[in-house]
């Protein structure tokens, strides 16, 4: 893991920034979110992919691409959460003063 991070820190940083931006926007965005059902289905898919990656059942280059995708996706999700939480904090701090 440490090896991959040093090798691709650029792409990982990109994923993180993208996540942060998306999280930042999502707090004030008006619109429909993903339905509960779809959300479960997507979670199950991701869980299955993580399981496949941990079990190292996908061979060769596909295995590597899966690992890379999951790491980028995990970072994206983390920074989405960070972005959303920060935006929420900023919004809730400015609301009473307004």
């Amino acid at each position, binding site marked *: 893991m440490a090896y*991959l991070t040093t*090798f691709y820190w650029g*792409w990982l940083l990109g994923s993180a920034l993208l996540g942060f931006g998306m999280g930042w926007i999502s707090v004030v965005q008006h619109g429909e*979110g993903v339905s509960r059902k779809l959300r479960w289905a997507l979670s199950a898919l991701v869980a299955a992919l993580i399981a496949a990656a941990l079990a*190292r059942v996908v061979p*060769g280059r596909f295995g*590597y691409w899966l690992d890379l995708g999951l790491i980028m996706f995990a970072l994206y999700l983390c920074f989405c959460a960070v972005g959303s939480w920060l935006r929420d904090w900023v919004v809730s701090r400015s609301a009473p003063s307004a």
Partner: protein
Amino acid sequence: MHGLFRWSGKWWPGVIPLVIFWAIAAWTSTEPLEADLAQRSTAALKDTILDKRRISVAGRDVSLAADAFSEDGRQSSVASVEAVPGVRLVNDETRLVPEAKPFVWSAERDVLRVTLSGSSPLPASKGRLMEAARANLGGVEVVDRMNLSRGAPPRFDNAALLLLDQVGKLKDGKITLSDTKVSLSGMARELGGREAIAAALKNLPEGFSVAANEVKAPPYIFQAYKDPVAVTLTLTGNAPDNNVHAALVAAAGRRFFSEKVVDNLKESIGAPSGFANAVVPALGALSRLSTGTLVISDREVKLSGDALYEAAAVQIRAGLGKDFPQGWQFKPEISVKPAAAPVDATVCQQLFSELLGKARIRFEPGKADIVADSAGLLDRLIETALRCPTANIEISGHTDTDGDEAANQALSEKRAQAVSDYLVKAGLPANRFSAVGYGSTQPIAANDTDQGKAQNRRIDFVVK
């Protein structure tokens, strides 16, 4: 927390650029990553001894194919690659180098090259053997047909290096090491090479032994060429030691009374037994030829040339083989020189005097037995006698003044008769010769010195 869950429903649009990022990252990074991992894996195996090592990387999975020289080495090589940072899986395609039983290594030399084949225990020892072969055999092409195998006996390298040294002493042949047994065959480069190899093999490392040593020595050659134009006898080839060398040259000097002896003999060990006992009579036979070559190769004696007359040819063909030690072969190729033109009696006398001026017919001391050394001279006297068939010849025997006069008289008569008999036996008519003894009554030199006495002990041919 509830907010985070609510907001997360709206995070999906960012996944679209993320997927694009991911595709680009995968597209651009895969090959550099694979190259980097291959290089790191190779570096990790730097100190591990493996043969036929092949590393291929797909994504983060490394396939390692190699022949290892021990189970420990095999496992540690896989572990080393597994420990390389970034490697996800190692596909272990390693195997152990096959075990050779028996462990056979050989070095074969022919005219052009030396071929090393069979098994060698490690790449390093293979390299060392090749290097040693190139260094020892200066200039000869060295071909490597060695495989790597397990199961070499202890101290294999030392033994193989010593044997490679011996290959340098071979002209052609093969040295094989089968487990700890050494077999040698072929031909030594030089006389004495076989003995040198046998001596070196005593230094084989402990545990190794010689199963068969069939290295042959090159033929032991001795040659003598009698050149009637240059009036020389040229000796070439080998003589076993200083004493035999001197004896052969002395024997040649006695037998070839009119030729100059050119001595080009080298002293080398490895002569067949009975060498001197065969060469001396063979030189005697050569001295009876007008022109001829004597070639002795090991125990085979070839004498070719022209005898002076038919009876001499028959005697040489039949007689020489009997004088040789056991196991020696004689191959005569004797022809007869065309008869020389007849001459009148005066010329004949002149020719006799010339011949007897150069050498004397010699007898056993105090006896009337002609010594074998004089055969060449007698042949020439007979040849001369054949050129004047009508002349009658007196064979006169003379002695020095030592001893009793009556005894000297009798001895001189007997000696003259012995020579006459010899001529008759050679095919000349008996009525042409009269044998006369003069005792010490007709000296040609003073009898007070050994030299003078030697000159007086003589046989003269007088044409009547």
